[in-house]
């Protein structure tokens, strides 16, 4: 038996194609980005080694007026919206549907539809919804007599950021609803029955039974929502491209523009590397946070 399942040649045949591809196109590029980030290079001419100069420029000097730090805060804002608005709403929907209601499957299927649509379409769609002259939102406000609430949503500094972040929140509610719904469905009916006999109110049983039982999934949702926010790209790229700068800039769109518009390969790579480190750090912090919360809880 071992001769068959320990066959070295067969293992190589099964593993190497994917592993080589992954190392060449997934792993080495990350290492290369680290190296590029220490170069002064426009992609064509001679590259000059500058050490950590770009990192200092990102956070201290900002000699090209990129306002990178501001762009990081913008993604934190999205992370906050996701954790405080998107996931709670997703949970409420998941709870209502998961505990059984008429039309359960219909609603579940419908709420998830926006997730399947490409963010390019979602971006263009909300670009027209928010159009100042003939967008649905302003026309609607006018019709119901709230004309004074109208805004040029995506060019005014105060509303532009929410104008691109709220569509993202809207699009992905169904995703978190589905994950939470599957988890709630996994709780055995006996547990709910026991609580009912106990006389616990629906609200109390939600907080004392359901949330602790599905906390592993809630954690996954929070991790995905936060990390996803840090990597945010599509809707900014489609809807505003960072304008009115720096109101809607995010690190990934700044990185894109720095590399491919300004041809500053080193500077842009420093932004890319920052994002890698940032995602890993947040992943670690969140895991630690959950752990100490659980320990404090028990």
């Amino acid at each position, binding site marked *: *038996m071992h001769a*068959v*399942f*320990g066959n070295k040649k*067969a*293992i190589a*045949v*099964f*593993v190497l*194609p*994917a*592993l080589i591809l*992954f190392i060449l*196109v*997934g*792993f080495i*590029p*990350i290492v290369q*980005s680290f190296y*590029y980030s220490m170069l002064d290079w426009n*992609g064509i001419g001679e590259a000059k080694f500058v050490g950590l100069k770009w990192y200092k420029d990102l956070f201290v000097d900002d000699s090209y007026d990129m306002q990178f730090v501001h762009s990081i805060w913008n993604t934190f804002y999205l992370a906050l919206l996701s954790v405080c608005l998107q996931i709670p709403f997703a949970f409420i*929907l998941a709870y*209502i*549907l998961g505990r059984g*209601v*008429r039309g359960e499957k219909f*609603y579940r*299927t*419908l*709420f*998830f*539809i926006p*997730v*399947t*649509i*490409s963010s*390019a*379409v979602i971006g*263009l*769609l909300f670009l*027209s919804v928010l159009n100042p002259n003939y*967008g*649905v939102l302003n026309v609607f406000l006018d019709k119901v007599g709230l004309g004074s609430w109208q805004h040029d949503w995506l060019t005014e500094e105060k509303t532009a950021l929410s104008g691109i972040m709220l569509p993202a929140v*809207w699009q992905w*509610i169904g995703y978190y609803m*589905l*994950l939470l719904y*599957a988890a709630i469905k996994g709780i055995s009916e006996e547990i709910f029955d026991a609580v009912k006999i106990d006389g616990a109110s629906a609200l109390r049983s939600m907080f004392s039974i359901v949330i602790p039982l599905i906390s592993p999934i809630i954690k996954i949702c929070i991790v995905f929502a936060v990390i996803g926010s*840090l990597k945010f*790209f*599509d809707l900014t*790229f489609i809807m505003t491209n960072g304008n009115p700068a720096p109101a809607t800039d995010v690190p*990934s769109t700044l*990185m*894109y523009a720095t590399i491919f518009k300004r041809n500053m390969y080193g500077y842009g*790579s420093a932004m*890319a590397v920052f*994002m*890698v480190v940032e995602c890993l750090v947040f*992943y670690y912090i969140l895991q630690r946070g959950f752990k100490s919360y659980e320990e404090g809880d028990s």
Partner: protein
Amino acid sequence: MVKLKWNSKTAWLQLFLVMFAIIQFAPLVWLVLTSFKSNIEITGSNVIGFPEKWLLSNYRNVFVGSNLGLNFLNSLLYTGATVLASGLLSAMVSFAITRMQWKLSKVVLAVFMSGLMIPVHATLLPIFQILKQTHLLNTPWALIIPYTVNAIPAAMFIMVGFFSSLPRELEEASVVDGCNIYQVFFKIMLPLIKPAIVSVSIFTFLAAWNELMFATTFISNTKLMTITVAINSLRGLHTTEYGPIAAGMVIATIPTILIYILLSDKVQKSIVAGAVKG
């Protein structure tokens, strides 16, 4: 009395769900309605309501001067190739990691799983450089290869979990019957992991079809563009008309919506499986 209370509670829940359904669905309905309206309606006379006359002209005009039909086929090709390649490659690695005996299997699994945490943004410029040097920029390979690589970690996440849940008796029996390891994989295991392959394929399809950053960067030839990039560039072609763009957006959405309507339970299972091992 108790029954009455229950009824009003149900009514409130239904009201809440209906309101949410409208919020989640109305923008999409509005998009479809817009794609059938004239430019005059879209830009003022009838922004919200149903079209006065259901016009098909937007769906004709969107193909004039653009390569949208080609872009649609490109997306199908790139996405299809990605689904096949990443599905086969990750099934092979997952099989070797879970069913075969070798020392480095845990390490190799960890290497692939690291791909789940690291943002692909950091690979954008290096891959661009590699593609440029190998003259693969502006070819289908420029997207098929990176998409395949990016799909492998999530696909393996699902498949390794699925393989681990299968009993070993069947493959051991088939070895006793004289199957070699390749026959075990292709004839015995691949049919067994079909549910996982379906999940992975749906997952990969959605990700690749909707991808934007790589597609914008690695392909600038309009004839080779994907549909998501192409509809964004329609804004340059139809600067004053929104109807054809809306039509293009509807066309770009048809395959994913179609898959979702036909396989909605499987799609939902696939999304859950991609996030939670189980």
